[in-house]
């Protein structure tokens, strides 16, 4: 028995911070102030990150193989912690208006704990429970704005569809258990037979369907636009980056560690998912007029590019996936945080209402433009290098048709990303000068709060720095990928 709690310290620290926030709030007469809650949460995240960093290079498994403590897991833990910190800072304005702030912060930290365990899970039972920890808390957080029907309905939709998808995932796990007699990923790999096996293929399809929901791959994406639109924006940001990245982290680990022998089967399935996801996401994004829905379809398309890397199924593919998720987390957070600030300012979610934004708020327009260009995959931003690595990994494995689909899709996506930038920078009523009828001249008084500005600055710096130092960060991912890839 290896009950070494040191290996679990990052999760314990974060859970304690969540408990502390909720308990202190419950027993203090007037409730905790927003600032104090942020300090507790930020402190918990910092301690957890420091403890996670200390585990680098440990590369062992703990609790009878229930979780792995390897560099791959540590990489994702740090990624989730950073994303949660930015989301918390960006939730500044939302927390001002909502009740039960301490519970909001607490559930967000517990959701992150679930995601961290998900990235480390080495046993099907641990995997299942960590998925449930994250999705149940995200369902609550999506429904948090109780006065708004849109938010509660978003929570209900997310809850029902995630419960359905975990039942599908469970059936796949049951078949996998039946075929091997084990629930541990490494033991499953030793027992699984060679050669074609219908039951194994069914298990694989069910597992991919379950994970496909989590990362919103087509055809399991139908919940995405509604939930992204209805949930409070900070939660949408969290859902679109941290939860998605964790889904990919678990998918890659299960495929690489438990099912290396049926790689030819899953490469075909994942490649098909990737092609469908990229194409549907991008084409539907073209016709969106609501910024949140556009970003929802854009994030579906982005999941498709990551799946290209998963389909590549090599160590190069795994490191490309990790780098892509790092790039995507920074970029998409920048886009969503810029949107939070802009929506606070303009009180509108329509893309058309972004016209002439650069006259009113040059910094927000710049931040949104940078993140959209990075999402489109233009150099010198990080999104370009991320796509390059993913396509390179796929080409390396001979998936040239998939690379072709990806490149065509990137070109299509440029249209809708550029449209927004065109609206912000070039379209202005009266030949470029801000005029009377210009939507952005009718501003609400809500300037970005300090927390929001900090979060946006950090995310944009991330986009720029990861882009400039892409080789360095890819190298980090490459070292960490060795702990799971064959």
């Amino acid at each position, binding site marked *: 028995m290896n009950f070494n709690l040191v290996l*679990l310290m990052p999760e314990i620290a974060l859970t304690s911070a969540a408990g502390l926030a909720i308990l202190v709030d419950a027993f203090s007469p007037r409730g905790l102030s927003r600032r104090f809650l942020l300090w507790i949460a930020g402190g918990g995240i910092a301690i957890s990150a420091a403890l996670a960093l200390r585990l680098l290079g440990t590369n062992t498994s*703990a609790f009878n193989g*229930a979780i792995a403590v390897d560099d791959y897991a540590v990489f994702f833990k740090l990624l989730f912690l950073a994303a949660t910190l930015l989301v918390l800072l960006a939730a500044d304005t939302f927390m001002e208006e909502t009740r039960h702030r301490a519970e909001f912060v607490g559930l967000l930290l517990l959701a992150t704990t679930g995601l961290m365990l998900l990235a480390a899970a080495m046993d099907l039972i641990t995997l299942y*429970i960590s998925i449930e920890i994250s999705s149940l808390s995200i369902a609550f957080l999506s429904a948090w704005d109780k006065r708004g029907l849109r938010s509660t309905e978003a929570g209900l939709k997310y809850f029902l569809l995630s419960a359905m998808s975990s039942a599908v995932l469970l059936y796949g796990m049951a078949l996998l258990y039946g075929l091997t007699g084990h629930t541990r990923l490494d033991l499953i790999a030793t027992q699984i037979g060679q050669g074609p096996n219908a*039951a194994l293929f069914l298990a694989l399809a069910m597992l991919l369907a379950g994970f496909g929901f989590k990362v919103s791959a087509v055809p399991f994406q139908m*919940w995405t636009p509604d939930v992204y639109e209805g949930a409070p924006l900070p939660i949408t940001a969290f859902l679109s980056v941290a939860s998605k990245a964790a889904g990919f982290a678990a998918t890659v680990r299960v495929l690489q560690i438990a099912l290396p022998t049926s790689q030819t089967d899953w490469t075909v399935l994942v490649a098909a998912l990737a092609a469908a996801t990229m194409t549907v996401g991008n084409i539907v994004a073209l016709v969106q007029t609501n910024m949140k829905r556009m970003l929802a379809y854009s994030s579906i398309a982005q999941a498709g590019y990551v799946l290209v890397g998963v389909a590549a199924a090599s160590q190069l593919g795994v490191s490309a996936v990790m780098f892509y998720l790092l790039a995507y987390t920074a970029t998409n957070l920048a886009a969503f945080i810029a949107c939070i600030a802009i929506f606070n300012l303009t009180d509108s979610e329509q893309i058309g209402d972004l016209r002439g934004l650069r006259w009113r708020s040059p910094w927000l327009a710049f931040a949104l433009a940078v993140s959209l260009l990075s999402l489109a995959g233009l150099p010198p931003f990080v999104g370009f290098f991320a796509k390059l690595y993913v396509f390179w990994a796929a080409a390396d494995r001979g998936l040239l048709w998939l690379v072709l689909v990806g490149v065509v899709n990137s070109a299509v996506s440029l249209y809708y990303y550029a449209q927004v930038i065109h609206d912000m920078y070039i379209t202005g009523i009266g030949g470029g000068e801000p005029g009377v009828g210009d939507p952005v001249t009718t501003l609400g008084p809500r300037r970005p709060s300090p927390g929001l500005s900090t979060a946006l600055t950090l995310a944009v710096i991330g986009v720029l720095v990861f882009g400039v130092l892409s080789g360095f960060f890819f190298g980090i991912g490459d070292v960490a990928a060795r702990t799971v890839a064959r």
Partner: protein
Amino acid sequence: MIAPTEALVAGSFYTFAAIALAGAIGVVLARKVFHSALFLVLTLASLAATFVILGADFLGAVQIVIYVGAITVLILFGIMLTPRNVELPESSGVGRSTAGVFVAAAVFIVSTTVIVTSQWPRSMSTPIPDRPTTEAIGQGLFTTYALPFEMASILLLIAMIGAIVIAREEQ
């Protein structure tokens, strides 16, 4: 040759299985939510019996306590607190009858075909002899599966905090 007691056990398994399936169909087809809930109780209780026959005595008891006892009571409370139905809009990916039936039929045909035609490992042709499972499960939960056990407590904590915040009436 099947001995009389064996015939009795086998017969009761297939009877309970049939009741469970009928109940499940009732859950899906019943017009009123309340009737669905009653059918669900039928399914869950007869499944508890099949678990016992399949050598999972402790699990059968847990099924009665958690599923029949706690979960259905919770669902009945939910039904009583919402006198009018809470329907989801069709855009949410549910409620499309033909597509739903098609998907379910496809899953049924594929899974049953796989189950019947698959070559299961040779060791799986004879069942493990019946034995008391309670002690082994308890051992497992506190040794091999100690971490998931602790994680389940986080899960229940989340459900508790969230449910209080979300379901509570604000003034």
